[in-house]
C-alpha cells in the first residue's frame, strides 16, 4: 500500500551523487538558489547567534556586546547551582513531554475520525469549528478554564451530581492536577489547528487504495489501520521529530496564567524563570544562557531522534 513511498525512500538513500563538474553543471539552478538561501539563512538565522556572547558577559545595553565585561561561565554556573533552575527544567520537560504526547495523539485521532465523516458539509463545519479556539488568546482560554474548574464551576457540579465527591475539588490548589490541566488546555486550544496538516496529508492518499482495501473486505477500522495511517505516516514522523526538539518550549503564558503560589513548585517553566530572574532584573545573560542550554538540548534531542528514524528507515529531518 505504501509501496510507492517506500520506493521513493530507497531511491533517496541509495542516491549518493559524486560531486563532479558535470553534476555541478547539471544542478546549477539548484545550486544557484541554494546559495541565495544559504546567504539569507546565514544573515537572518545565524548572524544573530553572535548574541550568545551575552551569556558570558555582564551585558549592559549601554555598553553593547563588545564592551561589556566578560564573566566566563559564571552565569551557567549560577544557573545550574540554583535548585530552582533544576526544578524548572524538570517542570518544563515534564509538561513538554506530556503536551507533546497528548496533543499529538489527539490531533491525529481527530484528523482521522473527521476524515471518516461522510457528509461533506458536516465535515467542513466541524473542521471550521475545531480550529477556532486557536485564535483565542491564552488569557481568554485560561479564564474559561478557571471558571469551569472553580468551586461552583461546571466540573465540580458534575462531580457532585455523580456523587464522586462531596466537597468541591479545588483543582488549582493541588500540584498533582496542574500538569494534566495544562495538557488539557493545550489539547482544547490546538487540536483542531494541529489536525489541519494531517487532514491535508490525508487528501494526498490515493483513493484507489481505499477501493482496493474495500474489495479485500476491509472494514472502516481496517482501512484506517492499513490505508490512512500508513498514508500519513511520513507527515507524522516529520512532525514528531520536529516537536521532539521542542519539548523544552513547553510554554510561558499558560503556566503563568494558570499557576499560583500553591502550585509554584510544578508550574514554573524555564521561560518563566528567565523572565523573573533575567529579564525583570535587567540581567540579559541569564536569559541567553538558558536559551543556549535549551538550544543544545533541542539539537541533541533531534539528532538522536533523527538517528532513530534513520535506523528504522523512516522519513528524516535531514
Amino acid at each position, binding site marked *: 500500500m505504501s509501496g510507492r513511498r517506500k520506493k521513493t525512500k530507497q531511491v533517496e538513500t541509495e542516491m549518493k551523487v559524486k560531486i563532479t563538474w558535470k553534476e555541478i553543471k547539471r544542478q546549477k539552478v539548484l545550486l544557484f538558489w541554494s546559495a541565495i538561501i544559504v546567504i539569507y539563512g546565514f544573515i537572518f538565522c545565524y548572524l544573530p547567534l553572535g548574541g550568545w556572547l551575552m551569556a558570558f558577559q555582564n551585558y549592559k545595553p549601554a555598553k553593547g556586546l563588545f564592551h561589556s565585561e566578560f564573566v566566563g561561565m559564571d552565569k551557567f554556573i549560577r544557573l545550574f547551582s540554583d535548585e530552582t533552575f533544576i526544578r524548572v527544567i524538570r517542570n518544563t520537560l515534564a509538561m513538554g513531554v506530556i503536551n507533546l504526547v497528548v496533543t499529538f495523539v489527539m490531533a491525529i485521532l481527530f484528523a482521522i475520525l473527521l476524515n471518516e465523516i461522510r457528509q461533506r458539509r458536516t465535515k467542513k463545519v466541524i473542521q471550521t469549528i475545531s480550529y477556532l479556539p486557536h485564535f483565542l488568546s491564552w488569557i481568554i482560554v485560561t479564564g474559561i478554564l478557571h471558571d469551569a474548574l*472553580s468551586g461552583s464551576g461546571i466540573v465540580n457540579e458534575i462531580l457532585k451530581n455523580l456523587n464522586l465527591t462531596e466537597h468541591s475539588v479545588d483543582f488549582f490548589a493541588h500540584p498533582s492536577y496542574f500538569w494534566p490541566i495544562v495538557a488539557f488546555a493545550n489539547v482544547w486550544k490546538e487540536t483542531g489547528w494541529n489536525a489541519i496538516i494531517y487532514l491535508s496529508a490525508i487528501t494526498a492518499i490515493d483513493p484507489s487504495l481505499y477501493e482496493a482495501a474495500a474489495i479485500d473486505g476491509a472494514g472502516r477500522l481496517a482501512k484506517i489501520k492499513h490505508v490512512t495511517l500508513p498514508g500519513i505516516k511520513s507527515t507524522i514522523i516529520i512532525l514528531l521529530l520536529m516537536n521532539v526538539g521542542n519539548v523544552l518550549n513547553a510554554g510561558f503564558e499558560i503556566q503563568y496564567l494558570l499557576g499560583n*503560589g500553591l502550585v509554584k513548585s510544578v508550574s514554573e517553566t524555564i521561560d518563566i524563570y528567565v523572565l523573573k530572574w533575567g529579564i525583570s532584573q535587567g540581567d540579559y545573560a541569564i536569559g541567553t544562557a538558558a536559551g543556549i542550554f535549551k538550544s543544545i538540548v533541542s539539537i541533541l534531542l533531534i539528532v538522536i531522534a533523527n538517528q532513530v528514524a534513520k535506523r528504522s528507515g523512516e522519513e528524516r529531518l535531514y
Partner: protein
Amino acid sequence: MRRKHIKTLMLTALMTASLITGCGGGDGGSGGDGKKTSSGGDDGKSIKEFTAFFATPGSEINDDNEIQQIIAEKTGVKVKETWLTGQTAEEAIGTIIAGGEYPDFIEGGSGSPQLVDAGALVALDDYIDKYPNIKEFFTEQEWDSLRQEDGHIYWIPQFSNIYGEEKACEHNDEAFWIQTRVLKWADYPEIKTMDQYFDLIEKYYEANPKMEDGTENIPYTILCEDWRYFCLENAPQFLDGYPNDGSVIVDPETLKVIDYNTTPTAVRYFKKLNEEYHKGIVDRESFTQTYDEYIAKLSSGRVLGMIDQWWDFAYTAGDAIKSAGLDKQGCSYVPLPITIEEGITNQWHNSGGVVNASSGLAVTTSCDDVEAALQFVDDLLSQEIHDLRFWGVEGTDYNKNEKGEFSRTDEMRTRCADTAYKASHMCTYSYFPQWGGTSRDNINAMSPSGQASEFYDGLKDDVKECFDAYGAKTYVEMLGTSEAPGAWYPMWSYSNNITTNTDGGMAWTKMGEIKHEYLPKVVMAKDFEKGWDEYMEAYKKCKPEDFLAEMQTELDRRMEEAAKYQ
C-alpha cells in the same frame, strides 16, 4: 458558486465596514508621525511634534484627540505617546538602548538606570531654573534627592505632588475594607482592631449567610495573584501602625529598618487568617483565584470584606456594584482604621506628597530641541493647561459657577469615564508631571477626584449614610490622616528598583518567591505552628539580613541627605 459570492461579499463588507468606522474617527494614521515636525492647525501656525515612550502600561489616545489639539494650539506642541505593550520595562528599554534611537521624551520605569548608563538622557540641572513652573514643582531638597551618582538630575517624577492644601477625599491606598451593610447591621460600631474586624464579619455572616437574592455571602477573600499578593503579605506593617514603606518598616525613633515579615504582629495576623480559614470565613478559593475571578466576586456583592488597594478594585468592582444597584443593599466598601491592638495610631493614610525618585519623565539626547520640550512641560503645569488636562473643556466636561467653582453633572461624570470618550476627547498627558491638591485659584482641586463637592455628589447612598454615622465626609476621614512620614519615605522607591546584581537584591527577589509560595500554605496549614516554622526555615535561607542591610544603607543615605537641609 453562489455561496462563493456570498463569502466574497461578506469579506468585502467587513473590510469596508472597518474602513468606514475607522474613517469616522478622523484622518486615521495619515499624519506623518515618524517626522518630528509637521505643520498643523488651520491658521498655518506650525505645531512641533514630539514623541514619547512610557515603559509602563497605558492607554493611547487618538491622533485627532480634541483636547490634545487645543493644547497644541495653545502651546505649539503635540506629543505622540506610546506605551509599553507585551514586554517588561527593562526589556523594552534594553532594546531601545541597543537601537540607539530614542523618542524625545521617555519614562524608563525600572529601566531608568540603564538609560543613564547609556548616556541617553539630557541632564536637566541647567535648564530647570529657566522654567518657573518646573522649578516650582519641587523644593530644592527634593530636586537634590533626584540627583544621580554623577550629580545630575535626569528626570522629573510626575506623581503625588501636592500644590497648596491637600484635597484627598478618596483613600487611593491600601486598607481593610468592609461592606456598609455589615456595619449597618451592627449599628455602626467602632472597629479598631483586627480581631474586632473579623469578629464582626463572623457574626454578620452567621446571621446573614445569604444575600437578598439567595446567593451565598463570602465573608472574607484574599487576592493573591502574582504581584497583587500584597493583599496578603504586607498588612503587618499597617497593623503595627507604620506607613506603607512597601518593603520594610522604618522605626522613626531609632531610624533602623525592621523586617515586617517576622514581627510578632505578622505571626498574629497570619495565625488569625489561619483560624478564620478553618472556620470557613476566609474564602477557600483565595489562593487560587485569578484577578478576574476576584473582581467578579466583588462585583456580585457577595464579599463582605477584604484587604486591598482602592485603585485595584474601585474602578472595576466598585462601578459594577453601582451599576447593578447593589449599593442599595449596602454592598459598597468603606475602609476601617484597623491596627493590631487598640491605642496604636494607624497610618493607612498619610498626607503630603511622595517623591518617587527612582524614575520620571526624561528628555533624551535624540531630542533636537530640548528647550522647546521643557517649555512644553512647563506649559503643561500652568493652571490653564492643567485644568484642560484634568478637568477638560469648560461647558463640555465641567461647569463653572459664578464663584468660580467647578462641578460636573452625572452625565459629564459618566462620559469622562468612558473608554472611547477618553481616547477621542480627554488628553491628560498622564505621564507628564502633574499636581494634586488645590488649584492656583484657591477654590478648586487640581483634578475632579479631589473636589469635595464633586466627590460627595458622586457618592453612593449607602456610603453617605455610613459616613454620616461615623461623622466622616470622606474615605480619608474614615481612617484619619497622619502626618507625612520622615524624609526617608517611601522606602519602596528604592526596593522596587534593586536587582539580583547585589546580595540584597538577590535576597529580596528570593524572599518574594518564598513568601508567594509559603504564605498561602501557612494560612491553609492544619497546624499553624508547624506551617509557620517551615515558612520561617525557608525564609531564613533567603538571607533576609542581606536585604535589610542594603535597605539600612539606603535609609542612612537618605537621612544624611535630608540632614543637609535642617
